[in-house]
Structures are given as C-alpha cells and as structure tokens.
C-alpha cells in the first residue's frame, strides 16, 4: 500500500482555482520533488496534506486513512506523523534552539503537559542526539534569532525529526539560503530518506536540484499536474510544459 495517495484533489480561493483534480501516489521511502513556477499551487498542495489549508474536494489517503475527513483528535494524531519544514524556518525566534526542537513533541502531549513544557529525559536526549547529528549541538542554548539561515533550517529539520514522522513535507526549504547552505540542507534531507526511511516531499523551484536529488518529480502548472515521473524522464520538453514556456527562454532567464 502506498504511504500517501491523493485522488481528485481540488482547491480554490473564492473564484480562483488553485488546484485542479490532482492525482498521485507516494511510496514509503520515496524522495519526491514538486516543481512549478511560483503561484502554481505547490505550497497549497503541501498544506492540504496536513490540513493547514482545507481542500474543497477529493481524498488524501495517508496510511490508508482519509486525512480530509478526520476529526480534530485524529487529525492531531496524524499531524504528529507528518513533519513540516518551511522556507522561512518558522521557528520561535526568541526561544532557544533546544526549546524549538522540543516543540516537535507537542503532538504527543496533553495540552497541559505542552503548556508547562514537561518533557521526559528520553525526549531531551533525543533532541540533543538530533542536534548532534545535524551538527548544531553547540548552539543548543542559543536563541534562534542568533543563528544563520542554514543553522535555523537545521533546527527546523530537528523539530520535524523529533516527531518521529513517517512523512516530511518541505516547502521550498532552500529558497532563502545561499548555495553552500542549500547543498548542506538538501544532503541532510536526502540522508533522512535513505538512512531513516522517512518519505520526503519537497517543493523546489530549482529544476536541477530536483533532478539531482529526487527519485521522482511532479510538475505543477496553474494548479494542474502536468508531469509525474522518475527524474531522468524529465527532459527539456517536459520542463517547458511545467514552466509554460519555451525551454530556450527558460535558460536565458
């Protein structure tokens, strides 16, 4: 059974259709990239999966359960199984790195435990282990706003990993980073899939990055799925289709 199966997904804002009839499946352990011009609906697609955005119609089967019909409690449980990484990291800037990482455990805690910040020794050890793994353990007690972009994104990855997720959604994780940090982050994401077997869906706007990292690529254009295949299948013709223009134009841009 596929880990994630999306069927006939539609979403519009007022009269503006953002996603039209999206169908695709994602297998466990896959590294999937979603490409497309800005405004194509990549972020909206990702946000429908963990219901930060409510879809209009369709089905999103995650682990065989339809996410779109879950009640509040079970939605919370499923969200804990899905990590998310953002373009702007979305940390709480005034809090320390370790505090931000532990936020990833809230999905498993009662409201009061969360509000009073009660974490087990195991959870704290795990947080430090992850910081160590991502090479930022020395910054554990620094405030997040004192870190560089690349370091903040690594904190974001730790926060997602401590959830013990089956799936991680990454919305343009490297769009605000310099080339070096971008490579570091992409390498970490790739190793998450390969070493931990966690499935990753990554929104990207750099085609070459998508081609060199992913198993499979999905192309969106104006809310339509126009490409779905292994990365080597994505040739200039397909790229032109995704970006809605001549490839030669794309290269000179």
């Amino acid at each position: 059974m596929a880990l994630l199966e999306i069927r006939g997904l539609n979403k519009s804002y007022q009269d503006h259709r953002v996603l039209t009839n999206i169908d695709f499946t994602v297998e466990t352990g896959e590294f999937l990239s979603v490409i497309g011009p800005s405004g194509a609906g990549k972020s909206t697609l990702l946000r429908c999966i963990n219901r930060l955005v409510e879809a209009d119609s369709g089905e999103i089967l995650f682990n065989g359960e339809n996410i779109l019909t879950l009640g509040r409690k079970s939605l919370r449980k499923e969200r804990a199984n899905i990590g998310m990484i953002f373009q702007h990291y979305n940390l709480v800037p005034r809090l320390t790195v370790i505090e931000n990482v532990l936020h990833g455990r809230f999905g498993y805690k009662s409201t009061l435990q969360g509000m009073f910040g009660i974490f087990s020794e195991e959870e704290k050890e795990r947080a430090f282990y992850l910081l160590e793994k991502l090479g930022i353990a020395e910054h554990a007690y620094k405030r997040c706003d004192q870190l560089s972009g690349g370091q903040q994104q690594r904190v974001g990855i730790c926060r997602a990993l401590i959830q013990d997720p089956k799936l991680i959604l990454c919305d343009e994780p490297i769009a605000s980073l310099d080339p070096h940090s971008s490579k570091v982050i992409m390498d970490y994401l790739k190793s998450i899939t390969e070493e931990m077997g966690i499935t990753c869906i990554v929104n990207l706007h750099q085609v070459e990055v998508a081609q060199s990292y992913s198993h499979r690529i999905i192309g969106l254009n104006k809310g339509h799925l126009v490409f779905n295949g292994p990365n080597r299948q994505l040739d200039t013709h397909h790229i032109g289709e995704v970006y809605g223009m001549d490839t030669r134009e794309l290269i000179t841009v």
Partner: protein
Amino acid sequence: MLTDQKRLSRKWQHLFLLIIVCCFTWLSIEMVQFDFYQSLLAIPTAGLWMVENLWITADTWREFPDIMLKLVETILMSVAATTIAAFISFFLGISGSTTTRRNGLMAGLSRGIASVARNIPVVAWALILLLSFGQNSLTGFLALFVGTVGFLTRAFMETIDEVGLKPFEALTATGATYFQVISKAVIPQALPQMLSWMLFMIETNIRSATLVGILTGTGIGYTFDLYYKTLNYEAVALVTLLIILTVIAIELTSNRIRKVIL
C-alpha cells in the same frame, strides 16, 4: 522613478494643501475670536504670577507627609488598574488578533470593546462613571481601567499580529493544540513587547490619575484641588513638583525594566 510632470503636480498639491491649512487656521481663529496677539502679551504676566505665588517655602513642607500619602495611593491605584486591565486585554487581544483568532464573533466583539473604550477619553469616562458610582475611588479606578483595557487590547492585538502566522503554523503542523501553540509560540514571542506596553500604560495612568482624581475627589488630584480652592498656592506648587518627580522616576524605572526584557 517619478516623471518630471508628476513631480511638478505633486509640488502643486503640497502647496495647495498648505494654503488650505492656513485658511482653516485663520477661519478657526476668527470664529472663536481667539486673539493671538493679546495671548502673547499675557504670557509674561502669567509667568510673573507663577514666580511670585508658586514659591515653595519651608512652611509648605509640613504638608509633605499628607501629600506623599495621597501620591502613593494614586500610584497604587494606577498600577492596580493597569495590571487588571492588562489581564483582561491579554484575552481580548488573543481572541481579536488575526493570527490567533478562532471565530469572527469573538474577534469582532473584542475589537468593538477596544474601539469604544479607547475612543472615549479617560476624563469623559470619569464623568460618565461619576453619575452611576458617585465621588469615590472606585470611579477613578474604573475610569482608568476602562481606558486602559481599550488601549492595551489594541496594542496587544498588534503585538500578536506582529508575531505573525509562521511559528503558529509550524506548531499547528506538529499536531500541537491551540492552547499549546498560544502558550509556546505566541506568548514567548509577544510577552516582552506586551510588558513594555503595560509599563507605558502605568506611566500614562499615573498622569491621568491626577486629572481623574480632581473629578472624582480622590487621590492626589483631590489634594491638588483642595489646596487650589483654599488658595494655598505654595502647596499646589509642592504637589505639582512631587507629581513631576514621581512621573520622571517611574519613567526612568520602566525604561530600565524595558532594557532588561526587550
């Protein structure tokens, strides 16, 4: 880039606006028959009167303990009104902010309360409340309280708005509950700014409390009024001096606190 033509028309707009303001000022002066020249002439005379009458002598210092007692009472009342108002505003701010609001009705309600409470001046509140509660310290307290709820709710809402949706979304995505998100993403980020607004309101309220006290017959305002009406101008001067010193002291203290928390 602005084209030259646009820049020129912008210039004319400004000139036009200036002329309108001038006309309006002149018209208003004519209408209320405010004689600018005469008022200018009155300034030296008034200054002379102040120097002659508002002279604090050793005698006046006998009133010092009484005045201090009232002053402390006023400060405590301002602090109490502000902190209790801040507590209420905190909840109104969370239910009204675009980041944290949960339903439109509550949001509209808290915005409405904030707007009504804020747009009526504290003195007007004092006069209105005077009718139903009479001349006592509760009236003064309520007047400050209502005005402060209005101001702080608005300030807190904007502070929470500024925190933005980003951490809120990130924590929601981990499966956190609404209250976990509020207490761990929104509050840590907004609290220092909120405390800063609260300190600002304490300063403002100590100032307003004097004025409100004159109306409600309580606190330092009452003392001021009493000396004023009994023509004890030296004591009036002393009261004024002490109020000024207090306000400065409070302002310095809160600036210190701000430096630490922000």
